[in-house]
């Protein structure tokens, strides 16, 4: 006996072995249909007794095993059922002959046999025969089960008779010696009459009877027989049979203790028929009657307690039995099977440690050279048994050994499919699941070395099996989950083989289903590359949609009635974490930035990397990238175009790495940082592109608050110059541009700027609207740079301090201090306070031109776009007014403004004022320029009440007023400069340099003094002619433009002659005489009124005379400023009448 039945279990000892075999040509399908029906009849309640008969069916049984039938009767084939096809009566005898041949094989042990014939009809079929049953075909054979039951009953009769026959066999007759095949030759020539021999025969027979009792359902009887047998055999040291007797004892005890069976599914016994459910339940209770034994088995009650082994004893006896078996090399199969049976029992007793010892022993049992198939079977069963006792790792180990055995090189046709299947079964033992999701939680905690090995083997097996999709899947899995454990060389090898596999069969994201129901989930390469951060990018500032203000307000109010509430603010914060507060625009390219890195020691090529989205129709534009080996964080921008509007969610990204497609969902990525994944897509908006006539600037402006400048232009201008900037507006989008608004913003600058920096007229441009896609419109902006023309403060101050600077008039000190505050108000910038005299200081001016535009469906929804043009102007100084002063002109209504003009350019420059001629200045030259100006009446400027409220601060108000004055003066002066060599020209402004003091002088005094000689208004250069001897009326008129009463004043007219050599002759009493008083008194004059004093002069000689009208000091009220009392000096030329004649 050499073929072990690894499925054996203790209960098999009580079964009858029936072999079911096909004869002739019977299709496998049909045979197994019948076999299944036959084997369903596995236990029978025999006749009236409550004994139960168990049948074990085999469709294949090696005849040499049958030879051990005497040793253990359950190994004996007692019944044979043959199944055959026979379609004609002609074939019948032949078929019947075959049946007999078949019977011969097991002939010695058979109790009975049956032949089932299918297909035969006619007279032969109608003959009633006990051993043959005829059925027309495989579908009409309802009585098969009945037939089998009859058959089994006939078997029982034989069994029962044998049992009774042997049991009653008393010592009177000679008991034959039962022996196993290999013993036969040992007993040749042995003394058969010795007591020893007889005892041996007796013991063996007892054991045999015990077996028969057990088979016949008489458990207690069998226990008794086994005990007796053990006693007998022990005394004669017949170890093999002693072992068998002990095993029989164990089996019977196991059957008693564990009615549920120990064999698991394979040997599961059905409950004992539906007719006895109550009894089945009772079997568990000690003291309850067993169903096996009432009536017929009288020993039940008496024997149970002492005969039946306790669970512990069962194991001890098994151990003993196995140790006896192990003495015989030829009983290896018996020993192995005993081990297996013991393990099954121990598994039920949950004594894993002892079970493992039995198994360990089983492993060492060396049978004869096993065939490969048997080895596989052996390892599989070992694995199964280890599984049974909860040793999953050991089980996996043996399963893997079995798998390897399937493809051993000695096998001609390696069973890769079987190998693969077995390997899959080892997965739980190595705590490996093929779902990559299980590896997402934290770091991998497993026995990586063995798991990797297993995965490698799976890959190899699946490849050899001819299923490249599977091997790609496994290899991807290996790479994805075991990446941390792979060495650099292994990483290279794995990826190389992966690439070679995928060249034939690309990896997909589909679920692979194996025929045996196992599903292999897709393996996305979330670690190749590793994504650390996902950030949805806003559109570039110029394309960013903005909501119209009014609509925004509505939205806000809809959310909450409160302007601010801490609770709402909190909620909003949470909301924000999920939703992003910017929008994307339909039809515009949107970007998502991923921070990725490559964990591989070589360059990683990622192809077809794109976004996975939902919610909105989205056209993803995949990218290919190549990451350097072990790169640090590397930004990758994935782009796409939303084609419809709504909420878009970025769910993940897809890649193709090493030919494997992966869809990586962000939710399943560990440790990823994201700023949210849902964005609103708003309807399409037009796109505006601007190009300008000026060169682009490399410098970018640093805008104050969030604005981003799309384009920058720069220009270099001389102070005072004006430049025209042509802007070409082109609609490069797909929607018509309907609306455009332009605003400008001058960035905070330290420089004081005069006049409008940027000015434009939008109407002409708007006339071309709406702008269809692809169309262009132009827009013109004037850039005017008008900075302070005063030179550096400190320099100016130097000039101021030299005493002579401001005016020729004597001044009292309080006025000087008025100048100072302006100096202080300027921010002191250390860098700017460069060395005095450094005139070539270039100043920069920056401004932003904002184009708000909208159109198309986005406009309807209330969105617009903002495009900003940064303008960067480098203002080089042109001319400086280093000093300013006034000289009173001959007329009191006028005065001379003296400007020291400094040419700070490197070119020759001409400068001209309103009506003056051009003044040529060489580079770096400074010249004085005098401009005669009418004095200004500043009081007449309207002062709007709005201005008053705006500048509540009096100081500000004052400055504002001063600016206005400056503007007025400047417009009158109209100073221009021109650089002929560069053909550049511009204006110069004095606004910034006019200080309080100069202004005072340029201002018309509120008291207007008019001196009329001979009814003619006398002023500076006017020479009044008069005749000697004629009295000339002199009229002094005072008009009060001030807001209060003035006066009284006393005026004295003092004539004098100027010798033009610095000598004034006041001794003119004899040349001029006054008619009336030479002193005038003026009473107080109320505002806007005037007062006139009249007098007369009589010139006695010819000559040029001057009249100096002076105030009496004591009468002049001190509180009025001196300049108010500025009277013109009168020049009178007295001519002799003769000369005229």
């Amino acid at each position, binding site marked *: 006996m050499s073929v072990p039945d690894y499925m054996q279990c203790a209960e098999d000892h009580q079964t009858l072995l029936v072999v079911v075999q096909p004869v002739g040509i019977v299709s496998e399908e049909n045979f197994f249909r019948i076999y299944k029906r036959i084997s369903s009849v596995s236990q029978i309640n025999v006749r009236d007794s409550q004994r139960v008969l168990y049948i074990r069916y085999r469709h294949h049984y090696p005849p040499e095993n049958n030879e051990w039938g005497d040793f253990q009767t359950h190994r004996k084939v007692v019944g044979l059922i043959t199944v055959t096809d026979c379609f004609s009566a002609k074939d019948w005898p032949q078929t019947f002959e075959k049946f007999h041949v078949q019977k011969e094989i097991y002939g010695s042990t058979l109790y009975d046999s049956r032949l089932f014939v299918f297909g035969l009809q006619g007279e032969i079929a109608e003959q009633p025969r006990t051993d043959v049953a005829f059925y027309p075909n495989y579908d009409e054979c309802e009585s098969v089960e009945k037939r089998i039951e009859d058959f089994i009953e006939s078997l029982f009769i034989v069994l029962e008779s044998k049992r009774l026959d042997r049991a009653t066999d008393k010592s009177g007759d000679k008991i034959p010696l039962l022996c196993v095949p290999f013993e036969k030759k040992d007993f040749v020539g042995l003394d058969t009459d010795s007591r020893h021999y007889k005892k041996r025969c007796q013991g063996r027979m007892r054991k045999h009877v015990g077996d028969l009792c057990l088979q016949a359902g008489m458990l207690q009887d069998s226990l008794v027989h086994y005990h007796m047998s053990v006693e007998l055999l022990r005394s004669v040291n017949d170890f093999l049979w002693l072992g068998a007797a002990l095993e029989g004892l164990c089996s019977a005890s196991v059957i008693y203790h564990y009615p549920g069976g120990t064999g698991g599914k394979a040997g599961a016994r059905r409950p004992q028929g539906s007719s006895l459910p109550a009894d089945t339940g009772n079997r568990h209770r000690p003291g309850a009657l067993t169903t096996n034994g009432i009536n017929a088995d009288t020993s039940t009650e008496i024997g149970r307690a002492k005969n039946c082994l306790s669970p512990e004893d069962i194991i001890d006896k098994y151990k003993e039995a196995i140790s006896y078996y192990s003495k015989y090399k030829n009983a290896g199969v018996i020993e192995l099977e005993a081990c297996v049976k013991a393990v099954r029992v121990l598994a039920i007793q949950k004594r894993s440690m002892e079970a493992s010892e039995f198994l360990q022993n089983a492993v060492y049992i060396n049978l004869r050279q096993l065939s490969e198939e048997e080895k596989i079977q052996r390892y599989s069963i070992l694995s199964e048994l280890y599984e049974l006792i909860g040793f*999953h*790792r050991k089980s996996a*180990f043996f399963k893997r*050994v079995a798998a*390897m055995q399937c493809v051993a*090189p000695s096998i001609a046709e390696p069973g890769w499919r079987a190998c693969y299947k077995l390997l899959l079964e080892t997965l739980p033992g190595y705590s490996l699941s093929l779902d990559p999701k299980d590896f997402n939680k934290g770091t991998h905690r497993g026995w*990586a070395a*063995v798991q990797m090995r297993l995965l*490698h083997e799976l890959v*190899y097996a699946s490849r050899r099996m001819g299923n490249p999709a599977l091997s790609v899947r496994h290899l991807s899995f290996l790479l994805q989950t075991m990446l941390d454990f792979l060495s650099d060389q292994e990483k290279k090898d794995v990826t190389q083989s992966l690439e070679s596999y995928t060249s034939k069969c690309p990896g997909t994201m589909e679920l692979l289903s194996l025929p045996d129901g196992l599903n292999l989930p897709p393996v996305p390469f979330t670690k190749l590359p590793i994504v650390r951060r996902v950030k949805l990018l806003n559109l570039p500032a110029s394309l960013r949609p903005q909501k119209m203000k009014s609509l925004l307000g509505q939205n806000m109010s809809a959310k909450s009635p409160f302007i601010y509430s801490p609770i709402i603010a909190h909620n909003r914060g949470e909301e924000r974490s999920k939703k992003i507060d910017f929008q994307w625009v339909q039809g515009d390219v949107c970007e998502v930035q991923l921070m990725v890195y490559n964990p591989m020691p070589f360059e990683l090529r990622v192809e077809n990397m794109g976004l996975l989205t939902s919610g909105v129709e989205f056209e993803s534009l995949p990218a290919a990238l190549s990451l350097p080996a072990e790169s640090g964080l590397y930004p990758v921008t994935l782009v796409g175009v939303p084609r419809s509007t709504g909420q878009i969610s970025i769910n993940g990204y897809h890649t193709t790495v090493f030919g494997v497609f992966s869809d990586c969902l962000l939710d399943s990525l560990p440790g990823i940082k994201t700023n949210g994944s849902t964005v609103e897509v708003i309807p399409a908006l037009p796109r505006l592109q601007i190009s300008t006539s000026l060169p682009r600037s490399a410098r970018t402006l640093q805008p104050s608050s969030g604005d981003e400048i799309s384009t920058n232009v720069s220009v270099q201008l001389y102070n005072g110059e004006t430049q025209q900037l042509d802007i070409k507006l082109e609609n490069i989008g797909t929607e018509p541009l309907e609306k455009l608004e332009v605003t400008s913003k001058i960035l905070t600058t330290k420089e004081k700027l005069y006049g409008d920096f940027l000015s434009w007229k939008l109407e002409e441009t708007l006339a071309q609207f709406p702008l269809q896609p692809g169309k262009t419109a132009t827009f013109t902006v004037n850039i005017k740079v008008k900075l302070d023309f005063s030179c550096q403060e400190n320099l100016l101050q130097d000039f101021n301090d030299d005493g002579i600077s401001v005016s020729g008039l004597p001044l009292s000190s309080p006025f000087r201090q008025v100048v100072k505050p302006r100096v202080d108000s300027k921010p002191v910038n250390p860098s700017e306070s460069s060395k005095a005299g450094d005139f070539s200081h270039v100043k920069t001016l920056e401004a932003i031109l904002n184009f708000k535009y909208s159109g198309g469906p986005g406009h309807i929804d209330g969105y617009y776009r903002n495009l900003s043009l940064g303008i960067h102007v480098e203002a080089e100084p042109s001319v400086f007014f280093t000093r300013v002063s006034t000289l009173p002109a001959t007329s009191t209504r006028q005065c001379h403004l003296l400007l020291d003009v400094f040419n700070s350019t490197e070119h020759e420059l001409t400068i001209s004022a309103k009506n003056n001629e051009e003044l040529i200045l060489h580079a770096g030259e400074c010249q004085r320029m005098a401009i005669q100006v009418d004095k200004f009446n500043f009081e007449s400027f309207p002062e709007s009440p709005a201005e008053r409220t705006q500048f509540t601060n009096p100081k500000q108000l004052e400055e504002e007023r001063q600016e206005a004055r400056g503007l007025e003066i400047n417009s009158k002066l109209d100073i221009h400069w021109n650089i002929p060599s560069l053909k550049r020209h511009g204006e110069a402004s004095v606004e910034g340099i006019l200080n309080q003091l100069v202004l005072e002088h340029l201002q018309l005094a509120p008291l207007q003094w008019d001196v009329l000689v001979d009814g003619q208004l006398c002023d500076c250069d006017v020479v009044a002619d008069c005749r000697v001897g004629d009295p000339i009326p002199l009229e002094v008129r005072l008009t009060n433009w001030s807001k209060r009463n003035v006066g009284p004043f006393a005026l004295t007219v003092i004539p004098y002659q100027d010798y033009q050599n610095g000598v004034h002759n006041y001794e003119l009493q004899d040349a001029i005489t006054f008619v009336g008083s030479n002193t005038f008194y003026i009473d107080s004059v109320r505002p806007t009124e005037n007062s006139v004093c009249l007098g007369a002069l009589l010139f006695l000689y010819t000559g040029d005379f001057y009249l100096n009208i002076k105030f009496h000091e004591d009468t002049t009220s001190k509180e009025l400023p001196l300049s108010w009392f500025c009277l013109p000096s009168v020049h009178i030329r007295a001519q002799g009448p003769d000369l005229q004649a």
Partner: protein
Amino acid sequence: MAVCIAVIAKENYPLYIRSIPAEQELKFHYTVHTSLDVVDEKVSAMGKALVDQRELYLGLLYPTEDYKVSLLSRLGIPCVKSMFPNQLHRYGYVTNSKVKFVMVVDSSNTALRDNEIRSMFRKLHNSYTDVMCNPFYNPGDRIHSRAFDNMVTSMMVQVC
């Protein structure tokens, strides 16, 4: 002579494994891995006993079992060899924090006494405690400690 020493975490993954000859490391991985079944079994059986009285030393886990299983040998030819060339015994030891030490001992030439094995484990345990005391060691990480390495090396050589 110890041929393989392994430290296994509570969650049953290796913290440290070292074997001589080093080429057969995978084999020892399997050997140690399968031993865990017995360790688990013994530990769960002991769980009922009082913790403080518990014996940390688990004794012999498995006697010899030496399978050479390789599917992916250099030439890609699978081979299975079942052989018992030398006597390998596996001993186990479990700390109170359920960290397991497994030692594979080649006893073909020298038979080690239980006491010797016990003292070796005690040494190993002390060394392991030192590793744990290192503030820069993260419990659950693989052990990369020179001191521990040296101690293991000494144990592998010492007894032979």
